[in-house]
């Protein structure tokens, strides 16, 4: 699974820490997600999609 978190984060001008605080996780989790080293839970994927105002399918590509 690949994701567009890094691209979308840059587009919205968020730092990793800011995005982490918005979705309620640690910065390390965002680092792992961007590197593709971790597949998030459905809950976290939903929170990230809400921040970027997109659907889960538009961010996480299976």
């Amino acid at each position, binding site marked *: 699974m690949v994701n567009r978190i890094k691209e979308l984060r840059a587009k919205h001008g968020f730092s990793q820490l800011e995005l982490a*605080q918005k979705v309620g*996780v640690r*910065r390390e989790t965002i680092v*792992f997600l961007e590197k593709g080293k*971790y597949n998030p839970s459905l809950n976290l994927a939903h929170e990230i999609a809400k921040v970027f105002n997109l659907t889960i399918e538009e961010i996480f590509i299976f």
Partner: protein
Amino acid sequence: MRAGPDVRQDDRAGRTNIGPQKLADLLEIPNFVLAISNIYPMKRTIIIFVIAALVLISAAIWLLESQFTGNFQEIVMVIILFLVLGFAIFVGVQRLKSSNRNESPEDELSKKIMTKTSSLSYYISLYLWLALAYFSDKMEWETHTIINAGILGMAIIFLFSWIGVKLFGLRNG
């Protein structure tokens, strides 16, 4: 009974209207509760530091009592002990840094990393104990030496499993 200047009785609704000063006084209790709730997420960090301190004190007592001779086996044990302590302090400091950045000290990733590390290290440790059982017959080790080697080996396996999980990440499938 007549209410004070800062507390007014609302006759129609039977409720008490509280003035700003009284409200500020009442907020002292929620502030105290808030302070306790801020300590609660730090509980595990405090436990990590307390355990590390206890291990350090125990190691110091053991070194003083056992008349440290400095042979190879003792030096290896001390190095492993300090590695494990260093790891505990590192984890504690990371949690403190997270706390300072207003992050939760634990989230879904950190919990999964610890779960994966624990299961992986347990699985590998089974082979360690099997190897120790085999070599203890061959080398005629004393029981306490086997137990020491097993416990310290498990600690090292846990440390390397944690590093491995951090390096390679957690992917489903």
